[in-house]
């Protein structure tokens, strides 16, 4: 089970007919059980990349080879729940064959038990994001795509949710692609880090984190973070100089 991605370029035309480059070279590979995190500034083309990887956008130069028959679980930046279906019905829709015990366990881990029968309109954003996570895990994915799953949540909640994601990913050893603008989230969750440039996105650097995420200490995380920040800022200086 391996994902190989080589997006040479992706452009789009706006309403005025002007051409914009969104991606200018993103190449990487990911193996089963690995978490790859893409870190880049807001608006750098991360969501476009996700649409390509999730097979929603075919209009690009390059090649994406997904594992054959892989089940994809995806968490979009907005939860994208169906407002007319309850929490449980939303999850069941994409995973009609999932057995009750497994769903119950999932709801338990994501602290959604009390909300199974609620409608999305009755949930806070944090809860709705957890439902979107439950939905992605319910399909028992081989390939999990997470687009800013923790954005705009308060720190405590984001930390809890991050731990829950780590637990689920390790439990099933799912190949995971996380996209975020938050370096801290990326460093705590990922095995491999890809730093993206501002738009048009290209991979500036790739970092491998050998320690298991469950045993990563604060000192190690701080060291990796400062390395990441140095590289990101270094790039900015480099670009400014040119």
């Amino acid at each position, binding site marked *: 089970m391996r994902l190989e991605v080589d997006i040479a370029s992706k452009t789009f035309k706006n309403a005025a007919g002007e051409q914009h480059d969104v991606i200018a070279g993103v190449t990487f590979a990911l193996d089963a059980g690995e978490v790859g995190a893409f870190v880049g500034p807001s608006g750098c083309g991360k969501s476009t990349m996700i649409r390509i990887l999730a097979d929603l956008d075919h209009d690009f130069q390059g090649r994406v080879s997904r594992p054959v028959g892989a089940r994809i679980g995806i968490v*979009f930046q*907005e939860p994208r729940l169906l407002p007319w*279906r309850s929490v449980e019905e939303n999850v069941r829709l*994409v995973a009609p064959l999932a057995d009750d015990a497994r769903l119950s366990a999932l709801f338990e881990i994501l602290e959604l038990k009390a909300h199974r029968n609620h409608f999305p309109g009755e949930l806070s954003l944090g809860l709705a994001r957890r439902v979107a996570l439950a939905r992605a895990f319910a399909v028992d994915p081989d390939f999990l795509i997470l687009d800013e799953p923790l954005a705009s949540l308060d720190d405590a909640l984001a930390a809890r949710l991050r731990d829950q994601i780590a637990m689920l990913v390790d439990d099933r050893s799912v190949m995971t692609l996380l996209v975020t603008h938050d370096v801290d989230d990326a460093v705590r969750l990922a095995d491999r880090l890809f730093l993206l440039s501002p738009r048009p996105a290209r991979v500036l650097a790739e970092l491998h984190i050998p320690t298991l995420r469950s045993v990563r200490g604060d000192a190690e995380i701080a060291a990796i973070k400062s390395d990441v920040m140095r590289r990101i800022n270094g790039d900015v200086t480099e670009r400014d100089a040119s």
Partner: protein
Amino acid sequence: MPRLLSFAIFLATWWIASLLAGDAKLPSPPTVLTALIAEAGSGALFFNLGATLARVALAFTLAMTLGAAIGYLMGRVRLADRLGDPWLILLLNMPALVVIVLAYIWAGLTEVAAIAAIAINKLPNAVVTLREGARALDAALDEMATAFALPRWSTFRHVVLPQLAPYVAAAARSGLSLVWKIVLVAELLGRPNGVGFEIGAAFQLFDIPLLLAYSLSFAAVVLVIETLLVQPIEVRLSRWRPRAA
């Protein structure tokens, strides 16, 4: 309770107006009731109401099904929209009477002609509403369904249809009131039974109690269907919406 009050006010106004205008011009409620009971006793009232309701049901179903399908297609496919738009404008602005008369001329004074004419009058209304609905579909939810590889039917049934439901309800609501109005004209012009035919006959004979008896029973049936059928369905369709405080 307010409904009862409103009914009582209607009855009182009618009675007073009838006293002022005279029984010959505006028969009093008891006179109309007598005519109503006589018509009901002979079975004619129920037969004619039944005939009208059957026409309404058939024409309404036909127009909603076709109209929804065409509207959805026009909302989703640009070419279909461009092809269909001139026809839609034409039909929207065609007087009901013209459609009915032409239908009777071309298809004879038949049941098929009557139902087709009523359906054609309602059709553009359903098309326009459903086209709006299809245009307003949330692309983000569509993407979600694609990303999770939901089967096409499942996507349509659980993602698309619920988004169209308010538009279907709106088309049904306005369409039904349109059909109620047109069915009587169609019956008056070319059917040998139904509420429209009876009202026409009563008009020829200047039998105002009978005319009012049919008009009011028809109005009562409309009210009952709206209250017991249309409104509960609307409530059920929108039960997931957070209630206003």
